[in-house]
C-alpha cells in the first residue's frame, strides 16, 4: 500500500510546532531515527525541539547536548526537554500539529520559568489587551 511521501528537509525540519489548542510551541529542530527494526527499516522515532536541539543540528552537537542536560537539570520536571515522540504528532501540513498541550511539552520549561518568575508578576499579564 502506497503511503504519503514526505521529505524531511522540505516538510518537517524547521517547521512550526503547534499544540492542540493552537498555541505555538517551538520548531522542529531535528529528527530522531529509530534503531533498525526486524525488517531493517528505520522510522522517525521523535521530533527534537528545544534547547540544544538546534545547536546539535547545526554541527555543535556537544554544546547542544550540554545545553540539553543543563536545562533538564535546571527544570527538573524529569522529562527530556527536547524529545517529542512521533506518536504525539497529529497532523503534518505547513506546520506540525501535536495532539498534546504545550504545557506538557518539555521544551516549554523556559517559557514557564519566564512566566512564573518575570512576566507573571507584571500587572496585567493575565488580561488580554482588548479589555
Amino acid at each position, binding site marked *: *500500500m*502506497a*503511503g*504519503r*511521501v*514526505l*521529505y*524531511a*528537509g*522540505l516538510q*518537517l*525540519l524547521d517547521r512550526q510546532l503547534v499544540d492542540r489548542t493552537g498555541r505555538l510551541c517551538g520548531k522542529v529542530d*531535528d*529528527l*530522531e*531515527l529509530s534503531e533498525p527494526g526486524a525488517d*531493517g*527499516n*528505520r*522510522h*522517525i522515532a521523535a521530533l*527534537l525541539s528545544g534547547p540544544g536541539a538546534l545547536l*546539535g*543540528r*547545526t554541527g555543535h552537537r556537544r554544546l547542544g547536548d550540554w545545553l540539553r542536560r543543563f536545562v533538564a537539570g535546571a527544570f527538573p520536571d524529569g522529562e527530556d526537554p527536547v524529545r517529542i515522540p*512521533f*506518536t*504525539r*504528532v*497529529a*497532523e*503534518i501540513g505547513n506546520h506540525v500539529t501535536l*495532539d498534546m498541550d504545550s504545557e506538557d511539552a518539555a521544551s516549554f520549561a523556559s517559557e514557564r520559568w519566564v512566566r512564573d518568575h518575570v512576566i507573571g508578576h507584571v500587572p496585567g499579564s493575565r488580561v488580554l489587551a482588548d479589555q
Partner: protein
Amino acid sequence: MRISDLLDRPVVDVAGVDLGKVHDVRLVQDGPPRGSALAALRMEALVVGGGALSVRLGYHRHRVRGPAPLRALFAALERRAVVVPWHQVVVTDDGPLHLRCGRAELPGLEEV
C-alpha cells in the same frame, strides 16, 4: 541516530565516485500506527546532490510555480539530485557515506 547526522554528509558510490552531499531524506508514511493517528514515517531514501539551496526551496518537488527565471534555475538544479535507497547506504559514524551500488543504478529525482 538523528537526521542531522545524515544531512550534509558526502556520499560516495561503490566505485568511489563522489555523488554530492545529502540534502534531504525521503520518508514514506506506511509504517504501522503506534498509538497515534498518524502512520509511522519510514526512512526510504536519501536525496543526494543538486545543491543545498535548490533542494531546500523545493521548486521541483513542491511544484513552486514561479517566478520563471528562479524556477528554471532551481528546478533544473534540483532535478540533478539522485535518490539513494536507504538499504544501499552503509551507515558510518563519520566521514562520507558509502553505497553498495554504483551511480548508474540510482534513480533521479522523479516527479512527486
